């Protein structure tokens, strides 16, 4: 219970987090999400096959691959979004912070609070801009107008939306442009103090300028968060990824640092894909 209330007000962006030597090389990874022998079946079809991967914290990991390769399915399994779908069967293990999230005792809201999800299309909740941002903190027990206002201001500043909306915080969020809404969704996700940000082709529905803003935001926040992005554009992965996972037909073909994977791919399939052989 206490774990939620105490750190909420102070944490964002103000506390200097200890730096890990993530960028120096592949050996000193600090694992954040560990996937072990993950298999997912949808309506009996084998969608993900024996996935094993370790996602390091405080970095951007991009999952790439042709459409239908299972990258979105994988991403959604990280915060158990498949729970409500009877057709999906999941086997294997998924550790977050060393804790298996697919056990019976795991409280799913607790898992989801650790991860913010940014969907393909921004989905603002049917309430005002400020209520959207503080929706999560409110759920998790933060009370008091000033506190909530501060959280909202802080997160909206962080996503660069504050100056655009500060005069109309009480208007419905649906009045914002798509690009603004997506940043609002990011602010909303950050406000629950997650450790991980999941992005499911989060920029694909946006105009180029908004999409650039969001991309830059990912780079800014990776000091504090582990960012996992599913992306369908190779160029985006090249621009921002620290680590890249290449998937094909439900299998993880190759995983490595961006430099490794783009410049010295080990696998023939990877080589073909990144040189634009197929898509």
């Amino acid at each position: 219970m206490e774990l939620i209330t105490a750190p909420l007000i102070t944490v964002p962006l103000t506390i200097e987090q200890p730096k890990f030597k993530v960028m120096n090389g592949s050996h000193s990874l600090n694992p954040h999400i560990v996937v072990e022998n993950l298999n997912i079946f949808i309506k009996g079809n084998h969608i993900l096959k024996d996935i094993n991967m370790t996602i390091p914290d405080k970095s951007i990991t991009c999952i790439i691959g042709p459409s239908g390769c299972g990258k979105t399915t994988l991403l959604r399994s990280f915060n158990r979004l498949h729970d409500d779908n009877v057709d999906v069967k999941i086997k294997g293990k998924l550790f977050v912070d060393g804790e298996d999230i697919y056990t019976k005792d795991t409280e799913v809201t607790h898992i989801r609070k650790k991860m913010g999800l940014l969907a393909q299309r921004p989905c603002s909740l049917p309430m005002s801009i400020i209520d959207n941002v503080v929706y999560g903190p409110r759920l998790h027990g933060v009370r008091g107008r000033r506190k909530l206002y501060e959280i909202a201001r802080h997160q909206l500043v962080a996503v660069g939306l504050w100056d655009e909306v500060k005069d109309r915080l009480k208007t419905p969020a649906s009045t914002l442009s798509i690009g603004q809404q997506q940043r609002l969704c990011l602010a909303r996700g950050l406000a629950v103090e997650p450790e991980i940000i999941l992005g499911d082709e989060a920029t694909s529905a946006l105009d180029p300028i908004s999409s650039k803003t969001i991309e830059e935001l990912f780079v800014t926040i990776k000091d504090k968060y582990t960012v996992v992005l599913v992306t369908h554009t190779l160029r985006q992965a090249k621009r921002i990824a620290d680590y890249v996972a290449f998937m094909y037909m439900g299998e993880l073909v190759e995983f490595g640092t961006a430099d490794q994977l783009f410049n010295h791919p080990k696998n023939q399939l990877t080589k073909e894909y990144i040189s634009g052989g197929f898509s």
Partner: protein
Amino acid sequence: MNTKKLEEKIFKGLMIGSSLLIFGVLLYILYIIIKKGLPSLSWEMISQIPSGGFYLGKEGGILNAIMGSLYLIFFSVVISLLISVPVVMYLNFTLRKKSRFSAFARLTFDVLFGIPSIVYGAFGFTIMIFFGLQASLFGGIIAVSLLIIPVMIRSIDEVAILIPVELIEATKSLGATNYETIKVIVRQLLPGISTAVLLSVGRGIGDGATVLFTAGYTDSIPTSLTQPTATLPLAIFFQLSSPIEEVQNRAYSAALILTVIILMLSFSARYFSRRFSKNKI
């Protein structure tokens, strides 16, 4: 080739004819109701209860029926909302999709929707006898609630299907429980729920057969749940059969008032659905 064209022409003629006929008849109904009701409509009519008995007294108005109908429908709508909103939320957002239970539940509600109001009235009456109750506002509320619960469930269910999965996922990703997610969904559904309420008010306020046994009829405005109450449809029905012209006129003005209420409900339903659909995602 010629017969084909002839066939199309004949059918097109028939179609235009029947459209005009229906349009005409429907306008004619409104015309008759207004023509008969308007002359006898007065401030006295809507501000006073009948004096000297609703069947024979020449003086007074139909305030008893107006207030009775409003009380009745208000409580019935509140009760129905408390049942139908949770039902729709459960079927759509708590149960997993395509469950047998939800298919069975929907079939049941469809059947309930088709059950005649007189059956609800008769059933309400047997319940009242069972509990030893007299015809009363309370009995009327039970019967009318039974009548409009299926109406509400059906019409909220229709809009609940349109809720985007993304909204559910966005809320759940923030760590919301199922109940907290449903609160957000209900918010999103408010326009749809308002439309459903208006629809059920229209259905409930206009139905005479349900309240015939259960709510009874009286000249006064009820002051407690155990007293009988007058209603607009029955005010029309009973007073129309009276041999006295003034009383019949009360029936006609009650018919006009009921029609105006229904038209206002219908207009506001349209206004609601148009106005709020802009704010949806």
